């Protein structure tokens, strides 16, 4: 598959993903805050988290979607703050970040895959 074709598929998937509700939002440590909660999507494509680093406001829910033919998962660097079950193709996982800070994470199957969520107000 050429990169440009893949990019177009991605763009389509992105458009579709924004229109449709995320199928299983779960495991959030606490309920979403009262103010309008933002959602940010990180896509897993070709063994890469994209974008690899994101900055969000407290209360933001980050959803990871696996677009590879190979399963991945999402594990906080400390292996405690969050850890998804395995995500097969097209499956997703969401976590709501309530506290400011830097949250590094990786794929527990392919640990060379790393990403970061920076949570800060304002």
């Amino acid at each position, binding site marked *: *598959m050429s*990169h440009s074709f*893949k990019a177009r598929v991605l763009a389509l998937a992105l458009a579709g993903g924004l229109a449709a509700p995320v199928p299983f939002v779960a495991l959030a440590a606490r309920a979403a805050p009262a103010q309008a909660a933002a959602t940010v999507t990180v896509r897993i494509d*070709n*063994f*890469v988290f994209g974008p690899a680093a994101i900055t969000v406001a407290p209360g933001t829910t980050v959803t990871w979607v696996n677009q*590879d*033919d*190979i*399963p991945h*998962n999402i*594990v906080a*660097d400390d292996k405690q703050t969050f850890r998804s*079950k*395995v995500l*097969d*193709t097209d499956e997703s996982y969401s976590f709501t970040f309530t506290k400011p800070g830097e949250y*590094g*994470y*990786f794929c*527990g*199957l*392919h*640990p*060379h*895959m*790393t990403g970061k969520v920076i949570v800060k107000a304002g």
Partner: protein
Amino acid sequence: MDQHDHSGSKNDPGRRGFLKCMGGWAGAGALYSVSGGVLSSVALDAASAAPAKASSFTFLQVSDSHVGFNKPANPDAAATYKEAVSKIMMLPKKPDFILHTGDITQLSKDQEFDDAEQIIKAAGVAVFHVPGEHDMLDEGQGKAYLDRFGKGTKGAGWYSFDHKGVHFVALINVANLKPGGMGSLGSDQLEWLERDLAHRPASQPIVVFAHIPLWTVYADWGWGTDDAAQALGYLKRFGSVTVLNGHIHQITRKVEGNIAFHTARSTAFPQPVGGQGPSPGPMKVPTEQLHSMLGITTASVVRGQHDIALVDDTLA
């Protein structure tokens, strides 16, 4: 068929040194018995056993069967695994046993493990497993694998056994992986390995098998094991060491001192050469080419020869 026995590869200058360094290899005597593929009694202490000459035998390596995989690169990985087992059953010499170097299943589901066991059972010989990262995906992060294959093993599932004078070591490098890292053995396993090898004569042939390569094939894709150097340090005094890995779904070979490294083909789908594709994921090839990129590896231990010959056969 790719043939690369250790005795005469022209394009591998390292082999000569490899052969020169190896002495005779009367192995340590040992007892073991296998029940349903599970090692039920460990080797006798090498020092207390009467030396037994290694005798000729063959064993098989299969890898990366990914039972449950059904994506475009191979819509039915169980079917090609069955074909691999049929190939084993048709070999002129029945192997003494099979080593499976991991990624037995695609998603660690019970049904996938069940199907995989049923398929390999048809070969009619004992099977020794190590898990790949795909076999660690249950809620218990490897508990499903250990419940099935971990009887008599230590830690995340490591073990060793002797067979006809050759010492076999199963290492686990897919557990407790660290962010940004590659495969990992961990200090507990390394300590165990050091003890396991400590009293063995340097003349005893050693076969080490693990899922992820124990040398760095391609770091950017995580194709290596972070703390492998320590393990290889314990192995380098032995005259004949064969390291069998999977994970990368293609044949690679390397000789370093007395240690011969080999990775096997998958029975499920090929992957690109390191760095030569968009990712280390499944590589879709034309259907008529798929079987020529899948395969099994036969290892021949020949009495009186110092090397273990490895022959890779495709499923074509």
